[in-house]
């Protein structure tokens, strides 16, 4: 609220003054009619984001994680006529994983090496750009990537590869505050798009490959002061601590590198966690290894754990459960669904954390039984061996960080999926701070060739795959669904594709000239709908001709 107060401070008194000063009246009118178009992003606006579908104000479009746009100007009828509207070259090389935000005609996004920028969303023309000088000895796992920003008030928030959290002025890109969350030399980094909730910026750490002790932090958006931290590996005396052997908890991993969701009705943040460390060796960390590969329900104000659900116990395959958890309401049932990296699609009661169903949605060989709660459990043959043997899915998972979508109109859950098996091998490895800590490795298995990539539409009520589209090769693109009856996704060959959400039939495509590692989003400016996605080194915006 600060910026509003400054610009329009005392506009009631300004009205009274306006009788005397026409200019003041002009400013007051500006406050009334012009500024609201560029008003602050209040928590209330984020909470009610579905009421302003022209804007895309959080990583997944709203707090529920649905990545569904209520815009329908681009629809089944006219999608085949779509055309590129603008392209913004970021100047970065490597993978772009960012989802842009759009607020009141301005697009905010990130690129490799902690670049952040603001563009005129109608034209793609840059307004400001920020680039961090990151140290040369950072410890990213998988490229110098970033998945996006959060916005609140007059600031955007960025988690950096050297494990800082920073606030940038949304109008200039100037650094407002910059705090160190953890030591990057020990393997901590941020690649996640933070989530702004109330007056807090919530963010989860990366570094499962380096044996960090994972955490989720919340910072005061105004000051950068840390308000709470939840360690995803319980310390001495805390519940769950006994699920780790000896001192293994100290380097237990369980990072939290993808964006969670928020349920205002219970004031809970749902945040997913990643693999225990070392990822490919269970020996030395006997036990379930809580809260690795889990969905956590945290009190948003204090970061206290209300419940957890662990998808893969004592994981030895790097099957992070960091996929976006999607809140779905069905009648009086309040559910949360996740298409997990381990190959199963889970539906959970989000009031209690109790599992409702778990159904395979891709090729899996690691589990052929369920426990009394219905949770798939690993068979004996699944564990990696010294010499290595084949398990499906592979370490990249049936899905990974690519954002899914849920369309309330078709009641289908859309997810990018892959059928690939890997040879998993294991070996003892001593922990060394800041050094990769895998406990051996995995390789693509020839047995599973060719590796197949799909866009799949899952019915959450049954877990059944209603339709699938097979890509030429597996893709890392996320998915967007829109009220126009469309689903959008990209492929590894550089195409951006519009599908019929009901049938999976491709209706339109555009060759962007670079592989897609990002998820699409939609927005509108001046009454015109756009769909945007990052590919290659650029951001693309498409619309009707």
């Amino acid at each position, binding site marked *: 609220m600060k910026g509003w107060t400054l610009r329009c401070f005392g506009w009631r008194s300004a009205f009274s003054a306006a009788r005397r000063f026409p200019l003041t009246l002009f400013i007051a009118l500006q406050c009334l009619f012009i500024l609201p178009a560029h008003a602050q992003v209040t928590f209330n606006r984020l909470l009610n984001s579905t009421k302003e579908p022209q804007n895309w104000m959080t990583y997944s479009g709203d707090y529920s994680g649905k990545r569904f746009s209520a815009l329908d100007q681009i629809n089944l009828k006219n999608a085949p006529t779509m055309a590129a509207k603008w392209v913004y070259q970021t100047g970065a090389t*490597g993978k772009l994983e960012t989802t842009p935000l759009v607020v009141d005609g301005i697009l905010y996004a990130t690129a490799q090496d902690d670049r952040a920028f603001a563009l005129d969303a109608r034209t793609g023309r840059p307004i400001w750009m920020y680039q961090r000088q990151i140290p040369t000895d950072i*410890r990213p796992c998988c490229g110098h990537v970033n998945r996006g920003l959060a916005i609140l008030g007059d600031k955007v928030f960025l988690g950096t590869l050297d494990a800082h959290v920073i606030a940038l002025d949304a109008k200039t890109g100037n650094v407002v505050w910059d705090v160190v969350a953890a030591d990057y030399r020990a393997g901590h980094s941020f690649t996640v798009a933070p989530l702004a909730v109330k007056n807090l910026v919530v963010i989860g750490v990366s570094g499962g490959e380096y044996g960090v002790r994972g955490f989720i932090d919340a910072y005061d958006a105004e000051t950068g002061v840390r308000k709470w931290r939840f360690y995803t590996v319980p310390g001495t005396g805390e519940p769950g601590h006994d699920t780790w052997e000896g001192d293994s908890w100290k380097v237990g991993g369980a990072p939290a590198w993808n964006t969670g969701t928020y349920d205002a009705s219970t004031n809970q943040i749902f945040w997913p966690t990643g693999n225990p460390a070392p990822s490919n060796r269970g020996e030395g960390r006997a036990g379930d290894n809580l809260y690795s590969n889990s969905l956590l329900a945290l009190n948003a104000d204090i970061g206290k754990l209300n419940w957890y659900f662990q998808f893969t116990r004592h994981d030895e395959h790097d099957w992070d459960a960091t996929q976006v958890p999607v809140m779905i309401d069905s009648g009086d049932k309040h559910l949360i669904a996740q298409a997990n990296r381990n190959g199963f699609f889970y539906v959970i009661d989000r009031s209690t954390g109790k599992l409702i169903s778990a159904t395979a949605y891709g090729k899996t060989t690691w589990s052929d039984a369920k426990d009394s709660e219905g949770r798939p459990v690993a068979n004996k043959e699944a564990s990696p061996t010294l010499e290595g043997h084949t398990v499906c899915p592979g370490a990249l998972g049936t899905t990974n960080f690519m954002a899914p979508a849920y369309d309330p109109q078709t009641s289908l859950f859309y997810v990018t999926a892959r059928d690939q098996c890997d040879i998993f*091998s294991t070996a003892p*490895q001593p922990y060394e701070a800041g050094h990769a800590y895998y406990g051996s490795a995995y*390789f693509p298995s020839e047995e599973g060739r060719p*590796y197949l990539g799909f866009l799949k539409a899952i019915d959450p009520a049954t877990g059944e795959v209603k339709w699938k589209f097979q890509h*030429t090769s597996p893709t890392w693109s996320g998915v967007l669904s829109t009220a126009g009856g469309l689903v959008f996704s990209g492929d590894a060959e550089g*195409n951006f*594709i519009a599908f019929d959400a009901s049938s999976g039939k491709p209706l339109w495509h555009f060759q962007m000239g670079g*592989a897609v590692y990002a998820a699409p989003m939609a927005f509108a400016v001046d009454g015109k709908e756009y769909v945007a996605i990052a590919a290659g080194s650029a951001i693309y915006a498409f619309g009707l001709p």
Partner: protein
Amino acid sequence: MLKLSYAAVIVFLALDLAACAADDRNPLAGDAKAAKAGEYEFRINCALCHGLGARGGGRGPDLTRAVKKHTHSDADMFQVISNGIAGTAMPANGTNGQGVGMTDEEIWQIITYIRSQEVKAPAQAAGNAAHGKDLFYGDANCSLCHMVEGKGGRLGPDLTGVGGSRTHEALVDSVRNPSRRLAWGLTESTKEFPQEYESVTAITAGGKEIKGVTLNEDSFSVQIMDVNEQIHLLEKDKLRSFQKSRASAMPKYGADVLSDKDLEDIVAYLTSVGAK
């Protein structure tokens, strides 16, 4: 003063390390435990390109060959792993965006491991390279589809470097059983070019049949080289049919077509070119 002495120590250590790196001797040479540790390091850092067991992958040479193109001594190998090879896909240690790379000790472990895997073979192939060249460009018809040093056909892979990166056994097997190890294109972030030499048959809307190999493909289009080296740029939705096969377009050369001796001669030719 304190700062200065720290600096001196650092410089001294750096010199010490450099001296160690330049050392022609692998301090862990022949150490079975180091080789085992090196095997795991190899899996994490090298196997994606060089294959499990160092037997060559989609992109990297087979390192079980005793004769290597870019390295001879352990010190050469240390240098190559540390700094990469300019002009090739071999990256410098720690530059793949996945952490800070290996320690010196780990590099020596990997070298120890690679040495333990080498298959001792004579530096010179047994066959007659000159006769092999005649066969390659003549009766064996290899050059109809394969190029060596700029001469030959285009339908199959260029074989100029193959003799320098694959073992004798792999070369023989590729001729006797061409479909067994059809190249798998690299995918994901390491994807450079997806060509896998898959055989393809397309029938156009007008009924024309096109047989060849795929140069590239996505969900909507395909680029094909036919058996006459003509390039066809096709949109999939305009084709009557489109079928791919992982049976190689190369005929199987059995011993009845190409004797063991003649095959040895061709391998000797390719090895002599690959060693250049």
